């Protein structure tokens, strides 16, 4: 178990470093000559040389990467913005909590709705409530969240005025206005995962329900609730690991949702940086997202191994 843990963590770190290098090289080779972008087309060769020297762009890529990594390790310092010259880390410090809050709430919402829905669906297997839940799941998996968000803006928000049609009110603007401004984005982001996780809960429970130990429990006259507890323990194994992975995926979709609702989170920072061709900022943001993604995948693996020891030993 410990060996597996160490191995997984080591591999994740190696992956992060490797993928980070790819990102570093790709953004650098694609960005063309940042000096021209920043200084303008009329820049003299001396100015360009000076610029490249100041930003360390004239050194080998590996050396640049190493320097950058040391900056990251040394207090989340993601280099300096090409455009403003300000350090990138503090620039993002205001945007990051917003994205994390929205993803976090959407995730909790998804789990809290998906589990009861899946349990209901499995306990009334084949009945109307099950059919309804399954149709909801297929539709929820298929209808893109950003369109649901657009519809929510168009109708409940604009037509009926129940919610603000976008924008973000921070906590300092009052608890109620803050919550009002994030309800729709969180719903639009979470609904896909409600569908995914409820489907998995249902199929997990149905599968476990046909196994011998549940039949034995039923034959012994155990109550429904007690059987459910026993069944859930095993049925939830895949749900937990997919849930952990979903957390990483949600940051990707949050990009689109934040754009749609004009929320000043990481997505806004990324798209602004892209517009400005400020690729050190782009690099930093994509690296942070990749880090979150890898950590949540690692967490999913760990949970899986913990809940399902057979799997861990089998490998």
């Amino acid at each position, binding site marked *: 178990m410990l060996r597996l843990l160490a191995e997984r963590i080591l591999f994740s770190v190696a*992956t992060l470093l490797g993928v980070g290098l790819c990102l570093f090289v790709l953004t650098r080779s*694609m960005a063309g000559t940042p000096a021209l972008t920043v200084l303008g087309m009329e820049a003299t060769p001396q100015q360009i040389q000076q610029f490249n020297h100041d930003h360390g762009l004239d050194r080998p890529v590996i050396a640049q990467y190493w320097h950058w990594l040391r900056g990251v390790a040394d207090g989340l310092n993601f280099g300096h913005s090409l455009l403003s010259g300000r350090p990138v880390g503090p620039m993002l410090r205001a945007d990051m909590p917003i994205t994390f809050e929205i993803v976090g709430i959407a995730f909790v919402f998804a789990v809290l709705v998906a589990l009861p829905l899946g349990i209901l669906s499995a306990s009334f297997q084949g009945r109307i409530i099950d059919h309804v839940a399954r149709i909801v799941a297929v539709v929820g998996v298929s*209808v893109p969240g950003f*369109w649901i968000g657009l519809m929510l803006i168009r109708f409940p928000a604009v037509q009926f005025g129940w919610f603000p049609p976008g924008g973000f009110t921070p906590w300092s603007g009052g608890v109620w206005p803050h919550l009002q401004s994030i309800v729709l984005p969180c719903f639009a982001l979470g609904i896909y995962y409600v569908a995914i996780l409820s489907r998995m809960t249902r199929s997990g429970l149905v599968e476990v329900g046909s196994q011998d130990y549940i039949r034995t429990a039923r034959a012994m006259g155990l109550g429904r609730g007690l059987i459910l507890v026993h069944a859930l323990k095993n049925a939830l194994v895949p749900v937990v690991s997919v849930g952990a992975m979903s957390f990483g995926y949600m940051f990707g979709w949050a990009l689109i949702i934040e754009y749609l609702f004009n929320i000043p989170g990481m997505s806004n920072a990324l798209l602004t940086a892209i517009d400005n061709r400020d*690729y050190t900022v*782009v690099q930093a943001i994509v690296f942070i997202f990749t880090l979150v993604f890898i950590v949540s995948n690692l967490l999913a693996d760990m949970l899986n191994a913990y809940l399902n020891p057979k799997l861990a030993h089998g490998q």
Partner: protein
Amino acid sequence: MSAAAGTRALRLPRLLSAGPSALIGGGIVLVVVLAAVFAPWIAPHDPLAVSIENSLLPPGGTFLLGTDQAGRDVLSRLIWGARISLMVSLLAVVIGMTCGIVTGLVAACYRQTWIEQVIMRCMEAVASIPLLIWAVALLGILGVEPIVVRGLSFGNEWKLLVLIGLLYTPTLTRIMHDVAVGEIAADYVKARRIQGVSTLSILLGDVLPNCMGPLVVQGTLLVAIGVVVEASVSFIGLGVQPPTPSWGSMLADSRNYIFSSEWWLPVFPGLAISLTVIGFNLLGDGLRDLLDPRHASRGIAG
């Protein structure tokens, strides 16, 4: 799975027995594919024809689903949008499938050697790349202008589909590898070897067809994801570029009319995306019971 089960299962009677979800899904997919293929003939108007006097007409009359801000027919743009949407999502799957089959087969072939280790570890690393964010960032840095290769112009959608295809590869490699490992160990492969058939022709002629079931199922589900990814990236303006009609960019345009009464602008493209995705998801789920009874393909997440 017996030899050629993959193709036999696709025959109509068995497809009909796959249950209502596969049939409904297949029907929807068929309609969308027909619309995409025959777009020039069935679209009632030119999707690009601007006519200011017809701008923002409500649905009904000559313009069945209304017109947009430039007076272009929404229905015609939807039909042409199916083309670009399917092109991106299908070609992405083709790219992912090709890469996945090659790497997966090679890895399965060199089982328990360093080659398998390297391939599978690399794939695991690629799988830890968050698709949407990398797509947005790389397209953003690369710019949305078309790439010209030997006089042929490749629009931005080509960059998008190559990127999606490459990021699909790990999933398909893993499935190919897992299924092929079981097949290669099977007795019929030994028999073919004794017959003196070369390894390559056993792999391509016998093993690969038997592995296609789970790959087809996963591919179908990945098409569904591709449609959403294309729409999302086009929605934020980094995918299909105007004036080419795309469902995602139609939704992006509709944002300007969110406060006025033109409800048809955001509603219809979204319905088109949703229906298409529902179609591919239902079809994939239905095919799974038919072609992939052991569930080597994974559910949809992403």
